[in-house]
């Protein structure tokens, strides 16, 4: 009887002391360490931890406070798992804020069920569903990844500029695929294009020839694939090439990967697509820092993860405390102008400026500039398959 009481008491003491920031501040990192993007998340988390370590090592963060990141699994697909993980971080570990979640569906769940009701700041580096722009978040939800509404717009412009008027769309049947497909179709139709067929596909099937048969019968010559490169998206492309249904594909970020060009690069010349990111010098700086820490910085959402963590650090510094309620109002201040521009690796400089009462404008690895609803405006690379590999054409 005594032991559970004791444990609870100890936990409570730990939790409250951490939240009130004696010498450590706990922050949560909720990514899908298991599930469909488990190959991406370890480096994303490492990139976020890189920023926390950088800030802690300066000794300038909140008068020498160190940051202790705690990882938890979002599973990417299971809202219940992600919600439980975030709940535990907030109540048991007493984190000041959370970096995450990663996939759009679980991020919505964590925001609605845990973060917003409990008043905890949530910064996602990779949730891109347009629906997240409209959730009731009391200003607590931010994302360093741009909304797919933007990607749909950019991609539609590129397609139209290439003189393509009629296309068919297939998307993976989840929040990401549907959101991107909707934003792309409306942008494309607004530009005068016509979408003759929109069909979803389920990931994890063995065979997509029926889907491809229907899509090709629509009469469109080009197929837009909004799916995952190691899942159904690849199956759709394989079945299209096998049946000779389509040769040129329009691809979104989830479909741009080397595994695709390795398998079918020679069979899909001229296929093109968009990928968040830019070629700025700041990006190169970040990739070097990441490399030194043993992270592959060029992969998807590494820069965004670093930026999410860095923004959280600067916001806490700006607020002057790690109180949950104090952090949120400071995020916009440090993310946007006015102020001294801060690039990756310059957290020490930023912490000093803020400590002296100055203003910073965090740019980071991915040119962070928050829109009114707290999400990155976003830059996109236009890529095309040339000689069996993706080549970057321009940045928009």
């Amino acid at each position, binding site marked *: 009887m005594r032991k559970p009481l004791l444990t609870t008491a100890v936990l409570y003491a730990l939790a409250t002391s951490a939240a009130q920031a004696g010498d450590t501040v706990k922050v949560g990192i909720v990514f899908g360490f298991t599930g469909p993007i488990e190959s991406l998340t370890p480096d994303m988390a490492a990139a976020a931890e890189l920023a926390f370590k950088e800030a802690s090592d300066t000794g300038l963060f909140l008068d020498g406070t160190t940051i202790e990141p705690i990882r938890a699994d979002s599973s990417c697909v299971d809202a219940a798992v992600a919600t439980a993980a975030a709940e535990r971080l907030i109540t048991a570990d007493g984190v000041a804020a959370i970096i995450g979640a990663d996939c759009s569906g679980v991020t919505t769940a964590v925001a609605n069920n845990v973060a917003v009701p409990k008043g905890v700041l949530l910064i996602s580096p990779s949730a891109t569903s347009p629906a997240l722009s409209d959730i009731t978040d009391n200003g607590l939800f931010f994302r360093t990844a741009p909304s797919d509404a933007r990607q749909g717009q950019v991609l539609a412009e590129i397609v139209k500029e290439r003189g393509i008027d009629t296309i068919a769309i297939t998307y993976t049947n989840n929040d990401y695929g549907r959101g991107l497909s909707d934003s792309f179709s409306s942008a494309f139709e607004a530009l005068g294009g016509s979408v003759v067929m929109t069909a979803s596909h389920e990931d994890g099937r*063995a065979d997509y020839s029926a889907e491809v048969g229907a899509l090709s019968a629509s009469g469109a010559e080009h197929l837009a694939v909004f799916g995952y490169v190691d899942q159904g998206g690849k199956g759709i492309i394989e079945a299209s090439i*096998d049946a000779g249904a389509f040769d040129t594909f329009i691809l979104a970020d989830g479909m741009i990967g080397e595994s695709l060009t390795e398998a079918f690069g020679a069979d899909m010349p001229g296929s093109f697509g968009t990928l968040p990111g830019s070629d700025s010098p700041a990006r190169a700086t970040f990739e070097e820092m990441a490399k030194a820490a043993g992270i592959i910085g060029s992969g998807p959402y590494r820069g965004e993860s670093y930026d999410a963590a860095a923004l959280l650090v600067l916001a806490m510094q700006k607020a002057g405390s790690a109180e949950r309620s104090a952090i949120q109002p400071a995020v916009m201040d440090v993310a946007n102008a006015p102020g001294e521009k801060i690039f990756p690796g310059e957290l020490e400089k930023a912490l000093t400026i803020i400590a002296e009462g100055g203003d910073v404008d965090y740019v980071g690895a991915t040119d962070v500039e928050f829109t009114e609803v707290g999400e990155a405006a976003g830059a996109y690379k236009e890529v095309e398959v040339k000689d069996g590999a993706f080549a970057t054409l321009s940045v928009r």
Partner: protein
Amino acid sequence: MDGFLNATVLLSNFVLVPGLAYGAQLALGALGVTLVYRVLRFANLSHGDLMAFGAMLGVLSTWALQAAGVSIAPLPTALLALPLAILGTALMSLFIETAVYRHHRLRRSAPAIFMIVSVGVMFMLNGLVRVVIGPDDQRFADGARFIVRARDFEAMTGLSEGLSIRVSQGITFAVAMAAVAALFYFLNRSRAGKAMRAYADNEDLALLSGIDPDRVVRHTWIIAAALAAIAGTLYGLDKSFKPFTYFQLLLPVFAAAIVGGIGNPVGAIVGGFVVSFSEIGLTYAYKKFLTYLVPPAWAPEGLMQLIATDYKFAISFAILVIVLLIRPTGILPGRVL
């Protein structure tokens, strides 16, 4: 005339060729189900995962052969691995028979109990496959990929529609036909096959005429395992190997067995093709096909698709329900085993 040719090629490319290959895979699976149902008198729900197990052995032996530098290009190495897969799967199902089903057979348990037991076996096999090879997609196809490429066909014939036939589709069809021929020869001509039919027809009478029941049961399991291994490996070769897809395959396989009249081998084959052509034919969009055939003014505006591809699995389920409601004995009743 060109319009008619184009329409024919279009339909062959998207419905006929894929339908024949898929139908052959379902037919092999349904034959295994039907055989076990007829001889051992229960619905073996673990058949889908037995196919996954066989396919896994096929994948592993293919990798071993590839590593050893064995190749029969342009044919896929998996064809050489097939006997190994069959052997392994047969041993596995004999092991399951001794360890699990034998107990219930000696106690003369009700068919419903056998069926529930087979669900347990299904989960065990399911887990075993995942532990050994993992839940992910595995590729093991090698050799030439196409018999006819769509683009080459267009260039050759001058038509605007291409026809593509993959090597895996050709092999699936050929191997399935060979397996079916061998099975029918065994059932109708060999002594063991006749014993099996006698046992299936009337167990007590067969025992009286000196047929060894254990032998018959063993033969049944070996043949069911061989069919499962062949169907599983061919399906993996033609589409892709992923353990979970075999669990999904269970429904169309059972639908095929029941449509044709469960217990009837010819019915299982017919059923396989009925299910495969229903799935593909009903979800295909006929807009382009009709555009080729009718005068331009009549060309359809819509997609002319009966059912969205999302409902592919629902089709086999619907077939199953309709057949059980209207004609529970299947479309080819009477002539069993």
